[in-house]
């Protein structure tokens, strides 16, 4: 005989699952692991968090960190917006139209697998060492990824809702806004998150190959000097920005757009 006895757990959230607390503890854990690893390694190849943060602060106050970071962020943002806009449109179109997909599929795969290096070199050689070439090259690297992700999303759209929208003669823009985009939300979220990080990684390469500033430029300089502290210092400055964007922008927005699921995100 089984007896189920339940009590509604109202606001009985244990500390181990309450949002900000966990995030803080988890983050502290990360720092602690790093600290320990650095302590045990005791090598200049693995500087500890204190040393790195000191470098970051010093470089921010006395060095070029802030301006370099600003420049890199601007490039990331510009390339991100371009890539998401173009990639989403093409991706959704390819997901919805089998014929279009057939036409563009092989181009897509070629573009997807062109090494970043090749695109960047060709862009620089043809368009000069300019900001536009740099941002364009980065966007071009990311666009096929966005297309691939959103194409999958468009393919798995609910045909029932599509019929509903057509029966009610919803105008195209309304349909996009209320029927299609909400269904694509998880795909857009995935493409954005992986996109931001991919773009930033490519921006680093772009900066390495033909810009005179930016975090990538600094990273590479410091790599040549094998200054791991500086490499990590610049890295965590960027990662800190990304963490801030994630926790103060992306996640609240995500909670808002998925509140209908009535499940915490």
């Amino acid at each position, binding site marked *: 005989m089984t007896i189920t006895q339940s009590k509604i757990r109202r606001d009985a959230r244990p500390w181990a699952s309450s949002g900000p607390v966990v995030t803080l503890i988890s983050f502290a854990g990360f720092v602690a692991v790093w600290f320990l690893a650095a302590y045990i390694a005791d090598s200049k190849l693995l500087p500890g968090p204190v040393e790195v943060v000191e470098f970051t602060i010093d470089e921010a106050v006395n060095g070029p960190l802030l301006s370099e970071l600003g420049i890199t962020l601007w490039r990331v943002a510009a390339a991100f917006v371009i890539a998401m806009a173009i990639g989403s449109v093409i991706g959704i179109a390819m997901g919805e139209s089998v014929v279009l997909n057939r036409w563009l599929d092989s181009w897509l795969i070629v573009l997807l697998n062109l090494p970043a290096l090749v695109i960047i070199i060709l862009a*620089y*050689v043809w368009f000069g*060492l300019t900001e536009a070439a740099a941002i364009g090259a980065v966007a071009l690297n990311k666009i096929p990824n966005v297309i691939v992700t959103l194409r999958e999303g468009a393919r798995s759209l609910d045909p029932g809702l599509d019929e509903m929208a057509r029966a009610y003669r919803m105008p195209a823009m309304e349909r996009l806004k209320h029927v299609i985009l909400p269904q694509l939300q998880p795909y857009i979220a995935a493409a954005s998150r992986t996109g931001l990080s991919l773009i930033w990684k490519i921006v680093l390469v772009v900066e390495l*190959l*033909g810009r005179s500033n930016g975090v990538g430029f600094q990273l590479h300089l410091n790599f040549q000097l094998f200054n791991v502290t500086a490499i990590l210092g610049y890295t965590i400055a960027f990662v800190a920005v990304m963490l801030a964007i994630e926790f103060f922008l992306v996640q609240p927005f995500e909670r808002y757009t998925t509140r209908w699921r009535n499940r915490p995100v």
Partner: protein
Amino acid sequence: AQDDEVSVGVLKFGTVSWLLDTIQHYKLDEKAGVKLDMLPLASNQATAVGLQGGSVDIIATDWLWVSRERAGGSDFTFSPFTTALGAIMVPPDSPIQTLGDLKGKTLGIAGGPLDKSWLLIVAYAKRTANIDLRTETRQVFGAPPLLSEKAIQGELDAVLNYWPYAARLEAKGFKDLIGLEDVVEELGAKGEVSMVGFVFSEDWAEDNPKAIKGFLEAAAEANELLATSDEAWERLRPMMKAEDQATFEALRRRYREGIPERTTAQNEADAKVLYRFLRELGGERLVGPSEQLAPGTFWIGKGS
């Protein structure tokens, strides 16, 4: 009159940038009637891309690249900047005394299997120690800073690296197993050969005679200054990122030793000799289709 502008793409913190910084600081460019515009970049490839794409007028690279490009139809040309070359460095307590001792050892090589220093050393070892380093050692190719670090960690028995990296290792007690100066001599050069120089388009130089002349003059003058003045070096110290006095001194010494002393014609003659070895060992991949050093590789400009 308005000074002619010359834009130079350089590796930031690279040795060329020391020179350019000296020029700018002592206003040697103005003195020579040009205005130097420095575009700092993060990799050698970036400078080459910049030159090809027309974003800069002058970069620093080697004459082999120039010869290959010329053979492919472009009009780049070369003017010597330094004779300093890479070196094989071994750890302080290493049992390796001669090239022969490298047999069976792990050797890190910056720049890959077609690196010119590496090929010249291979040729040298064949002649003097009768060993083929390419088959009788285990080679690890990789990024220069990573290889230096690996040598310090002890994962590599020896490392052939570019001279600034070699200098830094020297400051850590590493020993020069063989210097490239000896190598080129053995291979038939009449003196120290300038491998790295300023590279620019012939067309551009002809259209801007004043600019190129002024730039080379300013460069020579700055080298003069760096060869003699310790004070000029003190000024450069922050850019050199030398972690200690020993490194600083090693870098300074090697730089000074590398200042070319011979004429362009002498350099060119020796380059022709070395070209043969490089062609033999590196093949067309490395040197391009030309049987010999492409004519015009060394710039004999008006006034030079």
